[in-house]
């Protein structure tokens, strides 16, 4: 309950209406100084390594194959998504996730084809950070993780659990594990190439833009797209 209150306070303090609070954002981003340094490091890494590789990948691998790769990883994710839906007390959604996995792994040939979506069994996106949020754990301060990007203290723990529970990590043989993880990473980055062009242009301050985007996004995810939203006041 306290977590829920904290979340609500977050909404009120930073994310929308009450922007009258002066000062930077000590409420959600008390570690802004160090976070910005980590962000600069991530940006450099992305610029010189990850983005060029993702661009190359996009050029070399044709779209149907990339879709297949996305489907393959999406299919693996559905298992953990299902577990999280169960943990959040949403058995119907969890059932859909496991049903998707069963269907796509077989009819969809190891998950390369997302036949379940075509049958209107919609994909969900759940992770352990969201489950913690649902349970009432407050997000804690905003946290820019090296390599992994925007997070919060709660979501950082969530990511750890996601990683350990990921089926990819259960595969014996570190070469296969690393290879798959790398492919998943590059594929995800390639999917973001369109969006990051928009972000690059839209943001006056990329760090702040990304932070506020991330926080709004997580809040929306925790409430499955319907976060409590107070009426925005204003007069013309």
């Amino acid at each position: 309950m306290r977590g829920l209150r904290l979340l609500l306070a977050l909404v009120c303090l930073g994310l929308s209406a009450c922007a009258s609070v002066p000062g930077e954002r000590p409420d959600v981003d008390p570690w802004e100084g160090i976070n910005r340094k980590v962000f600069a490091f991530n940006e450099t890494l992305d610029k010189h390594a990850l983005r060029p590789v993702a661009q190359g990948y996009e050029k070399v691998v044709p779209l149907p194959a990339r879709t297949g790769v996305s489907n393959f990883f999406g299919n693996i994710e559905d298992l953990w998504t299902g577990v999280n839906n169960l943990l959040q007390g949403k058995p119907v959604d969890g059932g859909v996730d496991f049903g998707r996995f069963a269907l796509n792994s077989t009819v969809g040939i190891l998950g390369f084809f997302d036949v379940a979506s075509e049958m209107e069994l919609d994909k969900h996106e759940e992770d352990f950070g969201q489950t913690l949020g649902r349970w009432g754990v407050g997000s804690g301060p905003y946290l820019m993780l090296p390599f992994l990007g925007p997070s919060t203290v709660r979501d950082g723990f969530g990511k750890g659990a996601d990683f350990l529970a990921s089926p990819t990590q259960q595969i014996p043989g570190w070469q296969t594990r690393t290879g798959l993880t790398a492919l998943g990473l590059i594929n995800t980055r390639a999917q973001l190439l369109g969006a990051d062009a928009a972000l690059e242009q839209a943001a006056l301050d990329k760090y702040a833009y990304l932070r506020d985007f991330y926080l709004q996004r997580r809040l929306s995810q925790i409430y499955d797209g319907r976060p409590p939203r107070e009426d925005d006041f204003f007069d013309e």
Partner: protein
Amino acid sequence: MLKKIVAALLAFVAFAASAQEAPDVLARRLMTEVIEIVKNDKAIQAGDQQRILDLVETKVLEHFDFARMTALAMGREWRSASADQRKALTNEFRTLLVRSYSNALSQYKNQTIDFKPLRMKPTDTDVIVRTEIRQPGAKPVSIDYEMIKSGDAWKVYDVMVAGVSLVTNYRETFAQEIRNGGIDGLIRSLSERNKQLAASKS
């Protein structure tokens, strides 16, 4: 004779009133039109910025209320802005948003758009038109349009992508700019940003 003319006029007025588009109908018509154009325009698919901007200017922008968007992004600070400042802010913010997000059109591949049913009372003047973009292998992404009735027309004043408002997402940055340089400082930052973007593309 006169009676007939009056009757015809009345019928015409009634027709015009009923023909006034509901917000979801307007959104659906607009998106269907725009996508049809994008599908048939190789230059847009290839990312031709000028063509995209032309399309957006002629088809889309009249249905957006940029003053309201700017007010929403500013929050309380909007009240302390003078009429001239408001005009300048709206102009710059409009340029920035249009430039940054129009290119999304060139990303359109074969996604389908689902329109969620809109429950709305005839007296409502502020509604959310909810849509979902579907593509295989990914969770559907919601794009919601907040629309307000101004005069006779419905206008979009906020766009939420995956639950994130592209407008209020600016509020913190704007507040920070205003703390550092006042409202004129924010106007300057926005206009410099726009100049940079114009120079880097063109």
